[in-house]
């Protein structure tokens, strides 16, 4: 499913990353019959239709039971399968937190946890359905890779990597429309930032759907004569420490951008900088509050997770 928005002058095609998710899953399942999907009823919202049609037996629907879902995923891994455990990110993480900690991370099972429609994608459905905590929570769990791809191509790359990685991986799959971001021929590596734009004044570090917004903010800033570096951080855990330390050294400071509590990517970068290269930061994301009712677009505006909001944070950091 694609849509278009009018971004500045040009029309951009926006993509729902779930389309890349299911296409990649089907492709992986065709190549490797160990690949199975595990879900909590949400076949539709996980966009698993094409997979269900092609591999009806390899779709394990445990019903509305997220603890069971993650445990069953771990057991399928024990039984030699490569499970992709998919659910709305809010329920996969909060409801099955101990299973994520113990059955996936501590047990080091080869399993992929797919957090669907994360952040505030379910805007109007309210904070119970927002998954703004996932990055902050999961990045603290030892032994877990935490990825938030920024566009369809990166989503596919992360999933392919996770399918081959003998350990637990959490992947945030966005439903909010995003333009294509990563360059042609891009290869995902965990813990490797992608420099999308060079710049010497300030650094914008973003993850997930926020990456394209950071790029837009860099355009806004460029028009004002501010030269912003833009780093895409596809994994919040591990971080690309070298790229961040260099950015803190070479530019005036770092603005992090995420569709999540700012203790997610923002907190991770802050913890790195204070010990390695203290530098000023600004956080763009959801502050310490449950969001009011509103659509995701409205909420992103509300919290300033927009080109304008990011540019304003950069200006504030630079004292302009």
């Amino acid at each position, binding site marked *: 499913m694609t849509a278009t928005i009018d971004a500045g002058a040009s029309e951009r095609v926006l993509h729902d990353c779930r389309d890349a998710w299911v296409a990649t899953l089907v492709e992986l399942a065709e190549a490797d019959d160990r690949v199975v999907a595990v879900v909590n009823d*949400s*076949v539709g919202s996980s966009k698993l239709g094409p997979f269900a049609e092609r591999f009806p037996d390899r779709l394990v629907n*445990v019903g509305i*039971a997220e603890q069971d879902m993650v445990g069953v995923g771990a057991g399928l891994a024990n039984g030699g399968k490569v499970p992709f455990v998919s659910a709305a990110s809010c329920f996969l993480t909060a409801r099955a937190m101990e299973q994520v900690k113990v059955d996936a991370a501590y047990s080091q099972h080869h399993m992929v946890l797919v957090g669907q429609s994360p952040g505030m994608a379910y805007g109007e459905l309210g904070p119970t*359905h927002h998954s703004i905590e996932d990055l902050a929570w999961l990045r603290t769990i030892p032994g877990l890779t935490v990825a938030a791809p920024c566009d369809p191509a990166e989503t596919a790359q992360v999933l392919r990597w996770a399918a081959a990685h003998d350990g637990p991986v959490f992947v945030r799959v966005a439903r909010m429309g995003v333009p294509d971001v990563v360059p042609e021929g891009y290869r995902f590596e965990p813990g490797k930032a992608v420099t999308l734009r060079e710049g010497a004044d300030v650094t914008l570090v973003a993850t997930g759907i926020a990456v394209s917004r950071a790029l837009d903010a860099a355009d806004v800033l460029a028009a004002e004569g501010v030269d912003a570096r833009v780093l895409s951080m596809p994994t919040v855990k591990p971080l690309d420490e070298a790229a961040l330390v260099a950015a803190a050294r070479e530019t005036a400071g770092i603005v992090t951008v995420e569709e999540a509590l700012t203790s997610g990517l923002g907190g991770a970068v802050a913890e790195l900088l204070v010990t390695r290269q203290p530098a000023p930061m600004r956080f763009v994301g959801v502050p310490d509050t449950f969001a009011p*009712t509103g659509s995701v677009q409205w909420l992103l505006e509300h919290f300033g997770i927009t080109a304008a909001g990011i540019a304003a944070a950069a200006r504030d950091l630079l004292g302009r």
Partner: protein
Amino acid sequence: MTVDEDLVPDVRPEAVPDDAFTVLGRAPGEAPRAQVVAHLTEAARLVRRRDIQMVRAAGLGHIGGEFSVIDILVTLYLAAMNVSPDQLGDPDRDRFILSKGHAAAALYTTLAMAGFLPPEQLGTFMQPMSQLNGHPARTKIAAVEASTGPLGHGLPIAVGTAFAGKLDGSARRTFVVVGDGELQEGSNWEALMTAGNHRLSHLCVIVDRNRLQQGARVADTNDLEPLADKLAAFGMDVVEVDGHDHGALLDAFADVPAASGRPTAVIAHTDKGHPISFMSDNVAWHHKVPSAEQVAQALAELENR
């Protein structure tokens, strides 16, 4: 059959022409039963009218599960429960918790029908900064006893409030509605075990047994049958009723607390999307948003009942 629909479909808000709403209030206390049932029937009809218009206007909602639960809600708020708008601070008021919080619009319209919410507020459903969030929040609406949305939360909370009532020796009762799909959540079985063993006689668990969940039939996902046996084995006094029959619901609720001293489980047999011809028992309508034509047809069908 499974559905490839999205939880938040792409239909966008649209003004709805005819959203008048008459607040009928509680059924007269001393009226003969037939009159009470007529009152509830008319109220449920009006609540469904308003509900479908709200969903259409918001471009969001869970209309199937709203239409299946409306008769239960109306029966509780307009007749069975001992609670009124001026009594929300009374510790001895009856409690209601909508554990299947995705049917929020049905709760909001029922609360408006019973005088707990100004009807104008219904027009803000899901709008920015509205108190009428997609799932009910106790911090936003005084009459909402518990914030719900993630399935499997409301029943444990109901057990807690029933427990408090028991500690206080209060006559108040706690009613909670769970979806049938929702009963796949283990937290509910934890709560049922607690309720059964502590003989929380003033707790009434109503299962909206519409046989459908989000993506498919319950039986095709993770079946609940034999549901009555399960509930009985967890210590419930089990009653089965037609969940669209206001009289039968009234009787079931009047029997709480049960003579056995056990908590009551009412399996309310309903149809998702009831009584709309093209929605009823159709899994596609879990959270589908009706087109303008479908709204018109539904309103016409409601008119002719």
